[in-house]
Every structure is written in C-alpha cells, then in structure tokens.
C-alpha cells in the first residue's frame, strides 16, 4: 500500500496535475512580468470533492500553465454558496490574486430571492467554463414515461416535481413550462441532487428536474424527457428534445454554469493584471489539452463552453430578471 506516502492532498494534486500536463507535452508559457508573483487563491463556495472541485482542478491544470502560477482552492461551503461569496467579498483582498469560482445559475438566482450583504456590482464573472442545461427526468419505473404522460396526468391531479432547491434554473425551467402548457406543478425542493434523483426513482415525487450533469451520472435508473436548453450529449440524456423545440418556446437556456469571477475593484485598480487573467483564460480554451483534462476527470466535455465578460454579464442579467419574475413562487411570499 502507498499509505506511507505523505498525505498532503494539495501537494498530491499539484504533482498529479503537473505530471499529467507534462505527459501531454504542454508548452509552459511563463510570462516575464511582475504578475503573478504568487499563487492565485480561489474561493469555491461548495464542498471539497464535489462537482465544482473536479471541474476546477481540470480547468486550472491547463490554465496554470498559461498564467505561470498555481491556483490554490479554498472551500467555503454553506447557505447555497452565500458563505463563500461573503468571505470572498468581505475578507479577500481585491488585488487580482483572489478569485471566486462560482455557479452563475443557482447562485445568481439566490441573489434575486435574497440579496447578499454586498452590492452585486462589486463583483463580476469574467470567465465561463461550462454550460450545463437543466433536464426533466422520470424514474426508470415511473408510470409516466413520456411528456404526453406527464401532461395527461397533470390534467387529473397536481403533479409533485422534485428539484434540488427552489432558486435553481431547473426549477425556473419547469415553472416556465407549466406557464406555457397551462399546468400548475408542485415543486418539492429535495435538498440536493442526490435526493432529487432518488425522489424520482423511488416515487417520492412524480418526476424531477435537475442539472443534466447529475442526471447523466444517474445512468439508466432515470429517463430524461426534456432538456431546458440544447441537448449536446444526445444518448446520455436519452436524446431528449430541447424545451424550445418541443413546445415552440423561446426560453433562455436554464443553465448551471460555472465561471470565475473577480472583485470589480481589482479589475479597476489592476487593469493589466485583469487583462492577463482574461487573455490566458481564453488561451486555455484554445488548447486541446483542456479537452483531454476534462475527459480524464470524467467531466462532460460537451459542456465546456467559453464565455467572456459580456456573455457572463448577459447570463447574470437574465437570471436576475427571471428570479425577479418568479420570486413569489420561489419564496412563497
């Protein structure tokens, strides 16, 4: 057993990532500049070992080669991401050595429901890593096996729909679908993706909506019927159609979308540092090593999707607007 090895996990990961980068034959572009002169600290507002963690490690394993410095994650889970953001905005220096790796979908929707202690303009997302649309799915043994089944059943009774939490893009997708079809669904927040899948499989709820990455991971115990956006993985989501195609709607994609964000003040005070972050972030996407790192980390490479400041701002605005619109349904107020 290799148990006798020193158990420094961050060291492990660093060496592991470096080794894999080397085997991939990456050109190490190190820039002769003052910045960065140390590690970049990244707040991750979710648990270590979760989806964001894996995603972060795969992405930064390539990005760090471009920027010429390491990324050091700090995990601050709690209150649906609020703790991490509050710590980032309240305690971390706005000097471009501190970033936050958040999820623009649910976390921004959260702000619409209950604003944070800091003004929203004080930070902004500048680098979108992936876009993962929400999906609607039933348990493999559910009596409801098609969208038509669901629509027919909902004419007889109000269907219970599992979701990981109220303020989530997938929940909004369902509410929008209900509006379009004139059906009232009863959203049951089952606290987390694991329970949401379990709820649909065991019949606690009639069906569930969830970020599609987690639905793909659930394998053949569930069947996907609808995607709140483009179905880029095809078979993995049972070739389910896009909600807009299926019902002739023009709903913006309901995404879970991970992105790096930075203090507004850091971008203002250190424009050249921010430029370097932006340009290297973009270069990372142009490097085929990124795709390989994603495949190696068992991510869904189809969901890798570059976005810059503009795309992120647009998405954040759309989320805030939708959050405002559905606020009564999401907060019970």
């Amino acid at each position: 057993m290799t148990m006798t090895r020193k158990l420094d996990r961050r060291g492990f990961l660093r060496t592991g990532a470096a080794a894999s980068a080397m085997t991939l034959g990456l050109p190490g572009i190190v820039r002769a500049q003052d910045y960065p002169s140390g590690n970049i600290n990244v707040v991750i507002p979710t648990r270590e070992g979760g989806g964001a963690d894996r995603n972060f490690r795969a992405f930064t394993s390539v990005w760090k080669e471009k920027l010429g410095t390491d990324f050091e994650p700090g995990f601050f889970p709690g209150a649906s991401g609020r703790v991490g953001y509050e710590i980032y905005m309240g305690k971390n220096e706005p000097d471009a050595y501190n970033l936050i790796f958040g999820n623009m979908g649910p976390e921004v929707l959260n702000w619409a429901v209950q604003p944070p202690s800091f003004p929203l303009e004080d930070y902004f997302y500048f680098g979108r890593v992936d876009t993962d649309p929400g999906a609607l799915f039933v348990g493999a043994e559910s009596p409801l096996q098609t969208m038509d089944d669901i629509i027919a059943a909902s004419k007889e009774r109000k269907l219970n729909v599992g979701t990981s939490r109220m303020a989530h893009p997938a929940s909004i997708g369902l509410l929008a679908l209900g509006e379009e079809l004139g059906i009232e669904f009863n959203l049951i927040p089952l606290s987390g993706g694991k329970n949401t899948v379990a709820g649909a499989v065991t019949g606690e709820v009639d069906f569930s909506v969830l970020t599609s990455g987690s639905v793909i991971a659930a394998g053949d115990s569930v069947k996907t019927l609808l995607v709140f956006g483009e179905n880029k993985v095809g078979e993995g989501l049972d070739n389910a159609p896009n909600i807009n195609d299926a019902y002739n709607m023009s709903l913006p994609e309901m995404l879970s979308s991970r992105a790096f964000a930075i203090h507004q003040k850091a971008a203002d005070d250190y424009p050249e540092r921010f430029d370097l972050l932006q340009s290297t972030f973009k270069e990372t996407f142009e490097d085929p090593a990124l795709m390989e790192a994603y495949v190696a980390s068992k991510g869904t490479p189809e969901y890798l999707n570059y976005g810059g400041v503009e795309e992120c701002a647009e998405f954040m605005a759309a989320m805030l607007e939708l959050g405002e619109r559905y606020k009564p349904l999401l907060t019970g107020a």
Partner: protein
Amino acid sequence: MPLDPKDPPRQLGGELVIPVLAVAFTLYYFSSIWNSPWTAQVSAFMVGGILLLVCAMFFLRAILWLSRGQASLGVGNLFSIEDLRTGRIGLIATTVAFCVFIDQLGFTLTTFLFLALSMIILSKGKSPLLIVAISAVMALGGWAVFIWAFDTRFPRGWFEGVMQAVIANG
C-alpha cells in the same frame, strides 16, 4: 412530583437556567419567522409552542414549591466554592481563552499553551515538567496530523510559518 419534606429545600436557581434560556431562544426564534412563509413556521411553532408550554409548567411548579418552602432559588448546584478549588473555573477560562487566542497565535502554540496551563491549574502546580512535555508532544502531534499531513485550514501563527519555511528549505 411531591418532595420529601425532610429533604433540604431543592435549589431551583440553577435548574431555572435552562428553561429561561429555552424561553428566550424560542421567543427570538419566533420573532425571526414572524413574517415568513408557512413552511418556515409550521414545525417551529409546533415545537416551540410545546417547549413554551412545558417551560411554563416548570415555572408554575417552581413557584408552587417556592411558596411552600420546599425549594429555594439557590444556585448551589451550578456554582460552588468547590468549582474554584478543583480548578474547574480555571479550566473553563482556559477553554474560552483557547478559542479566543487560537486565531492570533496559531493552532500549535495555542494548543500547547492551553494544555500546559490547564493541566498546571488542575494539578495545582505539581509535576510541571511532565506537563510541559505532554503538552508539547500533543501540540506537535496535532500539528503533524492536522497541518502538515492533512493540510487543514487551521489558524496559522508564527510556529506554523517557521515550520513551513523549514520544511520548504529542508
């Protein structure tokens, strides 16, 4: 529950602390959900309502006992001179200090100081060398497990800084 009249009066002062805390907390909790949706309220009002009820019954029983002279408002079961003599007050104080100072002094040093100081207080100054040795071993062991091996986010002070530099160069 009738008390035996031959017993010395039951000291109710200490026993009242928990119900008073419970009532205060419940009222605060209620105030925090007064304007919330029903989902936030239903269970809390049920549980809190029962808690207030049992506390009220306890207070009534206490008043009854007090009026009959079966109980007093003494706090002897909560504080006594024994607590000072055994070093219990000292231990509680060092525990609070441990939590307060760990942020500034770092994990290893604070743990060492806490262990050494509280053991010396409890042993009333006997075998200080042994105590210092035990404390040092424990603190260093904690450092090795939590900071060096598992790399947790424990507060770091100068000791951790020095050790990091030593390891990095060594």
